[in-house]
């Protein structure tokens, strides 16, 4: 089995940001805020967050904030809850949450809660259980969870549960590992995991491991490195991670590395991208791979960052 090509991955992540000379790199610019979160969290897990200029990142993040309090995926784009969470997470990585007008961000998120407890992604009203997780996590990071109706929020998430123990994007939606992560995460953050049938959900998640050791997101799908995060973190949150083979999963993730130029792909020998690089590294961190910072499965941030926020400690820079 190969080893994690740490240095190559750091170089790869740093290079992604600079690359703007082809269609593939510019066409993703509308979600640059998500990209920043993926890349920077991966760097932090690798212990290399200090290779980037924190002030530069923070000022760019803040330039994406709107009057409404929400953040957009890039300068000049419309705000959305997806990017608002990424912005808050990036600031948390750098211990810069104090630059935020907390009430303003809180009001934006609170304003997106609907009567049934669900959350819309933005003013245009699309509802998704992912947005529930995002809202709950975002407010948890800001110590403002009491500003929404948590009970209703939890009830909505629970209403997305299926007979197979999994969760979908809305009530009645097909179970999907990504949605399951969000729903389980939302329930974990609100202390409501008793709503999960742990054996049943653990069973469904365990069946996602295929022969190669990789995890898929739904029945009959090919394995994909990103599910190393979605499935694994869910299994950890419901205490069923011993049901899968960790060794085989580690091997699968390491096989997806580009050991020459850095980066991790969805499956062995595919093209790498920053999204899969982050989820591969985060998955390895959950699997306690040596010399990686541990990551929190519900907050999707390094454990030391979460502890700092929870304890309200402030580090001098």
């Amino acid at each position, binding site marked *: 089995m190969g080893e994690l090509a740490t240095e190559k991955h750091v170089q790869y992540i740093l290079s992604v940001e600079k690359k703007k000379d082809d269609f593939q790199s*510019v066409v993703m610019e509308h979600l640059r805020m998500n990209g920043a979160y993926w890349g920077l969290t991966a760097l932090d897990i690798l212990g290399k967050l200090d290779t980037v200029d924190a002030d530069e990142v923070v000022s760019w993040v803040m330039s994406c904030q709107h009057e409404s309090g929400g953040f957009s995926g890039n300068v*000049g784009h*419309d705000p959305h809850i997806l990017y608002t969470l990424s912005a808050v997470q990036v600031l948390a990585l750098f211990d810069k949450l104090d630059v935020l007008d907390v009430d303003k961000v809180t009001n934006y998120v609170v304003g997106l809660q609907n009567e049934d407890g669900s959350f819309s992604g933005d003013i245009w*009203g*699309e509802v998704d259980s992912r947005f529930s997780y995002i809202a709950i996590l975002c407010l948890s990071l800001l110590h403002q969870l009491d500003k929404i109706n948590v009970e209703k929020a939890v009830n909505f998430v629970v209403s997305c549960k299926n007979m197979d123990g999994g969760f979908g*994007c809305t009530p009645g939606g*097909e179970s999907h590992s990504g949605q399951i992560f969000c729903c389980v995460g939302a329930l974990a953050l609100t202390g409501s995991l008793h709503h999960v049938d742990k*054996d049943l959900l653990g069973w469904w998640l365990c069946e996602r491991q295929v022969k190669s050791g990789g995890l898929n997101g739904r029945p*009959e799908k090919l394995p994909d490195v990103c599910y190393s995060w979605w499935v694994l973190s869910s299994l950890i949150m419901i205490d069923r991670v011993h049901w899968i083979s960790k060794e085989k999963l580690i091997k699968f993730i390491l096989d997806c590395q580009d050991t020459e130029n850095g980066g991790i792909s969805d499956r062995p020998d595919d093209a790498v991208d920053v999204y899969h690089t982050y989820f591969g590294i985060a998955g390895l961190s959950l699997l306690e791979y040596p010399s990686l910072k541990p990551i929190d499965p519900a907050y999707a941030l390094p454990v030391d960052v979460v502890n700092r926020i929870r304890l309200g400690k402030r580090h001098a820079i």
Partner: protein
Amino acid sequence: MAENTDVQAKATDLLSQFEQILQSDPLIDEIGFVHPSQFVKLNEELGSSKSASSEITGNENSEFWLQHHKLGISTQILHPLYIAARNTFMAATRKYRSSCNQDDQTMAGNSLCGLSNSLNIVESDVMKHSRALLLLSCDFGTAWNSRKFILSKKQNLSLYLDELLLSKLVLSFFPKSEQAWSHRRWVIKLLVEKGYSVEEILKKESELVERIAEMSKMNYRAWNHRRWLVSYMSREQALYELNETRKWAALHVADNCCFHYRRRLMLKILAESSCAEINSGLTLGIYQVWKEELDWDEMLIKRYIGREALWIHRRFLSVCWMRHFATDNKIFNQEGGIKLDIPFFIENELNLVNSCSFLSNEDFEDFQTQATCSGAYLLWLIKNCPNLKVDDKLRTYNLNTLLKKVCPERYPLWDSLIDSIESSD
């Protein structure tokens, strides 16, 4: 510097060519990014040598290709074209928003709500440029939003229907585009509010999803869209859809999305058949629906070896059967020739599992999967049906040995589950 301006001018020119093509043929129903060398091939296939721009602008080049309402864009020009589309759109939408604000101010206190002429022009610019941009970058949320913003001020049904066409065109090339599906739902809600025929919408959306599901397998968003529409259906429409998708499902037995859709339809039908109706025997249909699905699924399981989606479907069907229909009561154990008693049902399921769990040494992987799925199915049934008494017959079945033999890698799972079942006895 001069070179830079040249590049920009060329990009702007590409964008206007692109927008002209889109305007010239409102019936374009498919779009794709194509390497220019493929244009020649495409032309040969069609016995024609015209590129789109030669038709439109009279220039012979290979940047766009248009035939039979199919539009190809050369991969060589994507980068400059995208940059031009994005810059032009962003400038237009900024201008539009500031004009709107000004208009709001001048309109203040005026009950007449109309748009000034200049605003009309900017508005149509936003619509034109956002369309071009979305065909290049399907999840550019701000562009979809700008269209919603403009549409939400209009009462024109045909404009809404145009949006469905645009979303459909985007989906022809980006079948997983979250924003394109979401935009569709936003428009459909408006159409329904304005009294547009739900029946018409259901028909068109089902056709669209089926077409997209054909080219993009196990497409979660496509099927989720169709599943979302179930809430608009009557019991009869749900029954119709259930029948309509049977053939497709049988041809795509690995597509769990389609089977999930069928499960939603069945639950809809079940919910619409109230308890009173079930008790009075008026809805014989619901038993038949379930029985037919169980038989059909069994037939597929035997025909297509080792298909996980078929077994997952069976888990659902059987648990619902046990929860809603099966009975110990000998008096009502038959409904229209359908046996409802538990022992009969279990006997059948055990026979199925038996016939699927046989393994010889030289068997292929599919048979191993089939054996694993069948053992896991029986375990699932025992775990999820409290009214199913784990009698001696099931006990001697020795699931434990079967599962550990055919799927040793899930040893910890089988161990925990069987332990928990035994301790709950």
